[in-house]
Each structure stands twice: as structure tokens, then as C-alpha cells.
């Protein structure tokens, strides 16, 4: 009786029943490709895991060159379940990038970005770059040898971008070299700037998905069933999320995230410095590009290519319009997508083995 009255009190003020009725009415298309719909939700879930574990890590982490490594070491060895929280944070970050890529390519191949979902795609691409930014800034925070030199190499590459490179390098590093100032800056990006931006864009992305509903690929448009969003779809999502927690727990227990040795700016760079796996295909490509291409610097050309490829992601929905009316263009886009996946996969494996 008391709970009911609280419920009525809240409903009067928050219109919960209206939201619940809308949720009950909401439906999700059911066809042979429906599996891909779950990757968006999975990515969001992993993001939430990172927010929660990230906040817990913040209770002990100290963002300075003098203390960062020791504080992470303290988390890993002294804090009760600190090892679990840090390992889950790192593993979920990597799994999130993976599910994000799967989500993006599934949307790409199903052409779910077509009218009226162009802005959903654009906000998604922004979120991809923000996630990569999360990865890049978070990688340095333990202040270990590998992360220090990988950040040095990564920011060096950013510094090679024509015109804005030098300014960008100084902006990222907070000076000419990777120092404690870079760590403080990356920490700021990682826990304040990027989360604020990500909150805005995740909000916009989810809102747009709710507004337009799930896209149905053309071949199933005339013949597909529907499933209730609540509880059918959300319960399936829930099963996936519960299993994801299991996977994260297993990875954290069996392969706890390594800490390595503390960064030493005066030590020589160790052999085989590599960035996180999702940067590896670009890193490996830059290694293969000759030093000079005609009169131009090979590395600069490579960086320009990836910058343009990143920018091209934004305009895909505006180029590949009305795919059903232009089957040739549709095939070209499919081919580009397949080549991109193969290229990323092969170069990542080559980079990993190199």
C-alpha cells in the first residue's frame, strides 16, 4: 500500500506510467540479421562498466609522474579487489572498442545510416573517435615504460600532421616532451573532457535510435516479424550483459592486466614498442610506407590518408544515398567495407607478430 502510494507520487511528478506505456509499445524488428542489434547495447554496457570501475580507480589513483605508477601498483597489490577493478576496467575498454567496431561495420553493411538515420551514424562516428581518445589517454595513466614510449611515438605521429602537427603535439604533451605535464593533461582528458563529450553524444545517439527505431535491411523490409522491446529485447540484452560480466571476470582472473616497469624518461626505448591493438594497423602501415614518396614525406602521406579516411566516415551517409536505386554504388561501398575489414585484420595480426 505504501509502495503504491510512493509510486503514484513519483508518477504524478515524473510521468513514469507514460514512459512505461511507450516502452511497452516499442518494438524491435526480428529477422535473420537481428543479432547485430545487440552490439550497440553491448558497447553501451561496457562503457557503463568502465565508468563504474573508473570511478572506483579514481579513489586511489594519483595523476603525477612521481606517484602514478606507485598508485596503480598499490591498487593491484594492496587494495582489496583492486586488481579485479583495474583488470576489468582495462579489459572492458578493449572489448568495448571491439564491439564498437563490430557495431559500426554491421551498421555500415546493413546501410542503417540511410535517411533518416544520417545523424545517428554521425554521432556514432564521433563516439568511435572519443572511444579511441579514451584508449589513447588511458594507456599512459599507469606511467609504465611501454605506455610512456607508446605515447611518445603516438604523439610524434600526431606531430607530423602538416600545418597543425606541431601545435597539436605541444597541446597533447603540454610541452615538447612526454613528461608529468602530459600525464596530468591526459588524465584531464580521460576523466573530464572525454566523459563530458561522450555523455552528450551517447545521449544524442541513443535518443536518435529511439526516435527512428531500429533499421530493417531492405531485403527483409517486406517480410519480418516484430519483438517487444520490453521485456523481450531488453531481457536478451540482459543475458548478454550478464555473460559479458562473466567474460570480464574470467579475463581479469586469468589474465590480470599487466603493470610492467615504471617509466624512465632517460632510459632507452625498449625494443618492440607497440600501441594498443586498435592503433596497430595504422602503426604497421606507417612502418611499411617508404620514407619518401615522390617529393613528399612518406609518413606524412600515411597520416594524411588515415585522417582523410577518418573524415570520410562522417560523409558516408551523404554519399551512399538511395542504395537500392544505385546498385553499382552499393556494391562499391560493400567492397570498400570488406577491404577495410581485411586490411585492418591483416595489418593488426602482422603488427602483433612483428
Amino acid at each position, binding site marked *: 500500500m505504501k509502495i503504491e502510494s510512493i509510486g503514484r507520487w513519483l508518477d504524478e511528478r515524473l510521468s513514469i506510467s507514460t514512459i512505461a506505456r511507450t516502452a511497452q509499445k516499442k518494438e524491435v524488428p526480428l529477422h535473420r540479421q537481428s543479432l547485430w542489434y545487440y552490439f550497440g547495447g553491448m558497447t553501451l554496457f561496457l562503457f557503463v562498466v568502465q565508468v563504474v570501475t573508473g570511478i572506483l580507480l579514481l579513489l586511489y589513483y594519483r595523476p603525477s609522474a612521481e606517484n602514478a605508477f606507485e598508485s596503480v601498483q598499490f591498487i593491484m*597489490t594492496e587494495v582489496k579487489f583492486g586488481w579485479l577493478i583495474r583488470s576489468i576496467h582495462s579489459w572492458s575498454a578493449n572489448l568495448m572498442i571491439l564491439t564498437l567496431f563490430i557495431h559500426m561495420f554491421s551498421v555500415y553493411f546493413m546501410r542503417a545510416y540511410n535517411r533518416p538515420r544520417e545523424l545517428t551514424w554521425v554521432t556514432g562516428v564521433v563516439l568511435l573517435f572519443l572511444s579511441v581518445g579514451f584508449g589513447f589517454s588511458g594507456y599512459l595513466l599507469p606511467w609504465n615504460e611501454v605506455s610512456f614510449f607508446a605515447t611518445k611515438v603516438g604523439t610524434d605521429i600526431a606531430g607530423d600532421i602538416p600545418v597543425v602537427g606541431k601545435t597539436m603535439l605541444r597541446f597533447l604533451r603540454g610541452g615538447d616532451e612526454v613528461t608529468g605535464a602530459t600525464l596530468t593533461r591526459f588524465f584531464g582528458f580521460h576523466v573530464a573532457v572525454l566523459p563530458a563529450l561522450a555523455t552528450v553524444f551517447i545521449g544524442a545517439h541513443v535518443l536518435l535510435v529511439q526516435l527512428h527505431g531500429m533499421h530493417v535491411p531492405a531485403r527483409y523490409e517486406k517480410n519480418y516479424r516484430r519483438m517487444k522491446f520490453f521485456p523481450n529485447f531488453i531481457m536478451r540484452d540482459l*543475458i548478454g550483459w550478464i555473460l559479458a560480466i562473466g567474460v570480464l*571476470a574470467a579475463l581479469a582472473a586469468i589474465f590480470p592486466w599487466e603493470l610492467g616497469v615504471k617509466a624512465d624518461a632517460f632510459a632507452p626505448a625498449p625494443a618492440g614498442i607497440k600501441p594498443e591493438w586498435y592503433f596497430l594497423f595504422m602503426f604497421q602501415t606507417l612502418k611499411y610506407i617508404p620514407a619518401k614518396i615522390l617529393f613528399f614525406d612518406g609518413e606524412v602521406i600515411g597520416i594524411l590518408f588515415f585522417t582523410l579516411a577518418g573524415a570520410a566516415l562522417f560523409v558516408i551517409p551523404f554519399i551512399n544515398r538511395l542504395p537500392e536505386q544505385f546498385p553499382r554504388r552499393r556494391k562499391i561501398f560493400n567492397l570498400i567495407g570488406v577491404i577495410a575489414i581485411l586490411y585492418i585484420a591483416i595489418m593488426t595480426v602482422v603488427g602483433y607478430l612483428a
Partner: protein
Amino acid sequence: MGKKQSSTQAVKVCAGYRAPRNHCRSRAAGQLLTAIVITLILASDSAAQNKSSCIECHTRIEGKIGDPARSIQDDIHLSRGLSCNDCHGGDPTQDEKVAAKDPRKGYLGRPRTVDIPAFCGKCHNDANFMKRFNPALRVDQEKEYSTSVHGQLLQTGNEKVATCISCHGVHGIRAISDALSSVYPLNVADTCAKCHSEAARMAEFKIPTDQYDKYKRSVHAKALYERQDLSAPTCNDCHGNHGAAPPGIASVANVCGQCHARQAELFQASAHKVAFDNLGFGECIKCHNNHDIAAPTDELLGTGDKSVCVSCHKQGDKGFVVAGEMRGRIDDLLVQIDKSQSILDRAERAGMEVSRPKFELRDAIDGVTHARVLIHTSSTLEVDKVIGPASSVAEKTYQAGEEALAELNFRRKGLVVSLFFILFLAAVVYLKLRQIESRQAAQPTAQ
């Protein structure tokens, strides 16, 4: 107004004075002419001064007489502006042989072997002169040489001994920091061996000729040639260079102690010092040898077959017991360290964070190194002062390894339990979903 301005412009500042423009031009032309004449005079004078008829003529001569003129091109003296006449005298501006080699102009010719130290010493003994080239360079080489075995034999008239040119070369003398110099650290042993490995040459002096071969096998040679560690000792570091002499038995420890200071200090205060002196043993070299000094191993200590202690100490005497004790202490600590290292490696391979105990274990490893130095005290008590704390560290790190493995075990068990609940929860949600969907399928809907 315009006229006034042009007349003003016609006056220009010239060499600090205000003068009309035409006067200024003629004055500048005069100055230019003077400058050209002075430059030509100076250039011709400089050309005459730099001229070396010695090099010009000798370069053209094939064979031995021409060699000095060719090899001097790499010589440090030539590169510092000195030439043939600065050592040999004469007048290099003269093209005629007789005029160039005029004794009235100080021509000395080729010095006799016995005169070579003084010949080089003319400049190298002169502090004021040498300062011009290198203020840090010593100027006592000739004096030092006179104290060497080489120098003393030379004073007796023996010309088979080494003089300055035997080691430094004659006309192609390079700086000692030049890797091609015959006295560059990597080349010193070969330079000495040119004479000292030649049995026929050394027969007269009744000294062995196997030093070079022995040295090449030594720990010092390995450091110098394999690790390219130029601070590793070569012949001159122990024997001296210009004052080269074999160290006497009494001074061996002082020679080794230049680098191995702590060991030498401990030895001097040990019971061995008096015993060695009484027995006439050459301190360090008694156990470590001289030229073929091998890398010291723990086997040298103790009572085993390869121990050097047993060459003097027999079973039952005090030294024999102490040697066995010291070796035992070090061996025990090594076993402890090995156990700790092994368990920490296992934990690390399993993904546990053990960098702190691994770092701490270095203290125990340092303890072994320290104990190996302290054996020169010949006192188990002194060795124990280091072994004790090091052993505690090794024990503590071993416990840390055990705790890490216990934690790993706990995590694995925890994972199994967690996975059970996670899968159970997933199954419950799945079954609930199935139940809901069965109910939905039973209801007539618009689907």
C-alpha cells in the same frame, strides 16, 4: 631648398670625418690598394714559412727514406702545425739539400736510440711549450722513463729496449685517444706483445713471453675486447706506461687496489696479510694469478677441488674451517635467492603483480656481491654481518611469492564460484524470457 639638400648629400661621413664624396672615394681606393699589398706580402711570407722542402723531397723518394714523409701525414704533430725541422732541425725553406740540412741551422738528422728520450723530451719536458697544445698533458714522461726497466737498461747502453718510438711510432704518431694509435687502450697489449712475445728477443732478458696469451684469456681482456670497456685494465694500467716495471711482491696489492680498493683494504686488515708477507706471497696474485686472472667464481672459495684455499690450508686447520664456513654461507644465500626468484617468476607468469618483492630481492643479490668482497677479511663473522640481513630479505620475498600464489589460487576459486552464479543468473533470465514468450505466443496478438 633642393640645392641646399644636394650640397648636404655631397658631404659624407668618411672614417669618422666629414669630407666631400670625391675625397672619400679616393681615400677608400687607397686603403684597398694598401690592404691588397699587405695581404700579398703576408701570403708570400706565410707560404715561405709553411714550405717544407723535407716533405717535398722525401715524398718523391721511394722506399725507406721516403716513408717518414708519407706517414707523417697522419701525425698529430703535423696536424698541430709542427713539421720535420721542429724535431730534426734544418731549414725547410731551402730547396737545396745541403742548405736545408745545414748544421748551422740546427740540423740534427736521425737521433741515436739512446738519445731518443731526450730528443722527444726537448718539447715534452717543457711545460710552457706543451701548454700551447694541451695544458693537461704531463711533462714528466722522460723522467718516468728513466725509472723504468726500459730506461734503466737504455742507460747501460742496451739499445734493444723500448724507447718512445717503440710504442708510439716514429712519424705516424697519433693521439692516444685515436683508435688507430698503437697506444689506444685496445691496442696497448698488442704493442707491448710485439717485443714481449718474441722469445728470441726476450731470451737475453730472461723473462717469460706468455704474458700476452695469458692476458688475452683473462677477465680483464674479456671486459676490454668483448665488452669494449675501455676502463678495463691493459698492460700499462698495472705496470705503468712510461715508468713500466713489474710490480714487486710488496706492491702488487697496491696495483690491484687502484681499482679493487675495497678488496685490497679488507685484505690489508686481514690475518692473511701478515701470513702472506712472512711467506713471501704476492698477495692478490697468489689466489687470482697475474696475467691470466680468471673471472672469480665461488668455487675458488671453500674446501672443494677448485678452491684456492686448500692450496695452503689442510683439513683440520682453522683456515680450512673458515673457508668452508664462508663458502657455505654464500651457497645457502644463493639457494634462498634462487627459491625466491623462482616462486616470484611463477607468480609473475601467472599474471600476479610481484614487481615490489622482485625489486626487494635485489637487496639480497647485492648481499651476495657484498659477501663475496667480505671474504677478503677471512672472517666468517664479517661475512655473516651481510649474509644475515640478505637472508632475511630473501625469506621475506619468498613469502611474498607464496602469498601471491595463494592469492592466485583464491582468485581462481573465486572465479569458478562467480561464474557459477553468473551463469545461473543468465539461465534464470533466459528461462524467464522463455516463459514470457510462451505466454505471449499463447495470447492472440497483432504480431
